[in-house]
């Protein structure tokens, strides 16, 4: 039980870290797209 608890904790930690990173990248992508659209609107 203790061994599986340890390995399970590691797996969970890795999943959480990667998920948070992916959410951060998604937010950045949205910001970049918004700023590019705004520039295209301003250029018109």
């Amino acid at each position: 039980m203790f061994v599986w608890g340890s390995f399970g904790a590691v797996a969970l930690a890795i999943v959480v870290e990667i998920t948070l990173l992916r959410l951060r990248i998604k937010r950045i992508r949205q910001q970049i797209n918004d700023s590019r659209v705004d520039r295209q609107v301003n250029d018109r």
Partner: protein
Amino acid sequence: MNIYKYASPATFYPLAGRLIPWFAVLAAMLAAVGLYLGLYLAPPDFQQGEVYRIIFIHVPTAWMAMIIYLVMAAYGVMALSFNARLSSMMMEALAPTGAMFTVLALWTGALWGKPTWGAYWVWDARMTSTLILLFLYVGYIALTHAIEDKKRADKAGALLVIVGSVNVPIIYFSVKWWNTLHQGASVSVTSGSKMASMMALGMLVMALACWMYAIAVALVRVRAIIIERELENGGAANWLNTLDTQDMQVGLGKPRQLTR
């Protein structure tokens, strides 16, 4: 070849993008081999039985917690000495992963301590100093987020990390300096290994796997930090427009089409 050009975030960004898949694949392969060695090939311990297998996670994560902090301190010295922005960004990128490894080291240590020592936690020198390391990581993250001006935040964070780095040798030598419940070093550069060779090999392979994982994740995070800071500075218009979709392989994608 001028390697100093990679000190610029704009030049380092595509290089980091090309390196990430290599480190990620290496981490996965080493983890698979390490887990096979540790969970399948290595024999049970004559005293602890199967519960000792936590060593294949506990020791690598503890090593990474200390190594990442020392790397952060080195970046802190570079950031303060050369006023290098990328060094500060690397510190910021490494901190969450270092904190994660510290939590895992403490958690797996507690799960190992209960069946072997009869207690999840004791206030011995190594465990207490590792807990302080976790506070240092969290303190760095909190401090840099609390200061709005990025340059001041980077300087304050670098100072905190450099001063806190005195804790790492305390953690490492605590089992030698004090009469602690935590066992002494089983693996040493000077005196070799006191463990069975298969156990030592599994532990070292897992340590390498954790190292490759930490590098891959830090590179992904530093790319995100570089873009975020560019967006904050309003420089995103010029620099990001020079990136093509290959550079954006971390999933930053193509700009959506204008519909209005």
